[in-house]
């Protein structure tokens, strides 16, 4: 089991979602985050105040999957989120120690397998 964390551009989030559904990855959560990854800062001006915006809005996907789904999930994130310019984001894959489905108490493989699959 792995936790796949993908940090992508907000405007690419829908493309990633589409790809995840296509790859039959049914369970994930997303959150809005801000971060910095080596992009040029954008300059904004509010009345007389000029600022460099050091943080860019991103969407963070967290997908807990069993081994056979790790690569399809990574592919879905990469293909959905890529524009080819700096700022497309990162994917982190980390091992999972335990997973529990709260409703049933199922653990591990059973817990990351979608209901009805």
């Amino acid at each position, binding site marked *: 089991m792995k936790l796949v964390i993908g940090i992508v551009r907000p405007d690419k989030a829908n493309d990633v979602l589409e790809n995840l559904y296509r790859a039959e990855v049914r369970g994930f959560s997303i959150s809005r985050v801000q971060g910095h990854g080596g992009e040029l800062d954008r300059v904004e001006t509010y009345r007389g105040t000029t600022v460099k915006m050091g943080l860019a809005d991103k969407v963070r996907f967290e997908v807990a999957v069993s081994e056979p789904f790790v690569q399809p999930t990574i592919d879905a994130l990469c293909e959905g989120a890529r524009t080819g*310019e700096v700022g497309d984001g990162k994917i982190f894959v980390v091992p999972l120690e335990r997973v529990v489905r709260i409703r049933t108490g199922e653990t591990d493989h059973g817990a990351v397998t979608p209901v009805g699959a």
Partner: protein
Amino acid sequence: MTHLPDLAPIAQVDTGDTAWMLAATALVILMTPALGLFYAGLVRAKNTLNTFMMCAAALAVATVTWAVVGYSLAFSEGNAIIGGFDHVLLNGVAFEPREGTTIPHLLFMVFQASFCILTVALVSGAVVERMRFGPFLLFAALWSVLVYAVLAHWAFGGGWLQANGTLDFAGGVPVEMGSGFSALAAALVVRSRKDYGRQALLPHNAVFVLLGAGLLWFGWFGFNGGSGFSTGNSSVLAFTNTLLTPACTLVVWFLLDFLRGRRVTAVGAATAIIVGCVGITPAGGFISPTWAMLLGALAALPSYAVIVLRPRTRVDETLDVLAAHGVAGLTGILFIGFFAQLSWNGVADGLLYGNAAQLGSQALAAVATPVYAFVVTFVILRVIGLVTPLRATEREEAVGMDIIQHGEEAYATGEGAILVSPEAGVEAERPVANPV
């Protein structure tokens, strides 16, 4: 402009009329920022400011073009198609009453200016979220003169529609049909947003939409109530109808929403308010309050149908200016042809009261206006498109027009923002999303 018979007494400025028209003008001016709020709520968060700024642009550009040449082309003596240059730079527009009214000529001019501004802002609804700001400014300038001033001349300034007996109380021709069918042309030339039809593009703040619609309705009491240029009967009638008609549209819209989806929607209600106000705009001072209520109910139907069907097409007329303004304005213009009542308006009867010719005059306006607005808008945008790109690139569209076009965000948190000292100056770094 109607010519008074020789024997009529020379019109004097009436203080009561002038007081009301000063207030009415301010009410109409409020409608443009109200429209900005309404439109801003309907777009995605990343395009909020750009959308609002298009309405602010109308306040800037259309005011100037109107004072320089628009007012003259609309309201000075000319031919049947377009006015002359007598009032260029407001030449000869001062405190004497405008012929046929009892208010100062200057006040008449500024009241009409507020209409031109609002109409330019209305058209922006077709092209938000992708059209570049610079070309829009150019479009606003050309459109306010070549389309709005001409249509205003036709309907109000002594042009051929007015001479032909077409009744248009407060702007069904130049404002509503003019903006609606121009919006359709603009959407076709600028083309759809890159995500249109692929992703759900949802309103980001429905409260803005409702508040904007409410403020528009409030301003519309000046828009319609002022279009009698007096405190007389026609103004009172139009003012009253401006409450009755949208209320009936709302009721019918609730029903249509309920029948279609078992729920009454808030964004739908805001839309219904606009549709009702638009419907009564041409008819306000010409039909009885009872018929105004019927108009409100009827006007909901075609506009609702267009709003439901339009997103199934490839035409990304983004904020449905055609449905809310073009179609509802056309409904109102035609409605006058049936239900105008001499005993209420003192001008003419409609078909229902034995004057079938009135319906003919109304139908003529309902055909000629959309054709003119559509064709000229199409040409204006094509010509601007030859000089400069009309729309932002796909990448810029993805980042959002606020950051790309204005260097600001509507909902900036300030987290991670580093103050750039004024002495250091701003390095000309391009935003990451736009590294040309």
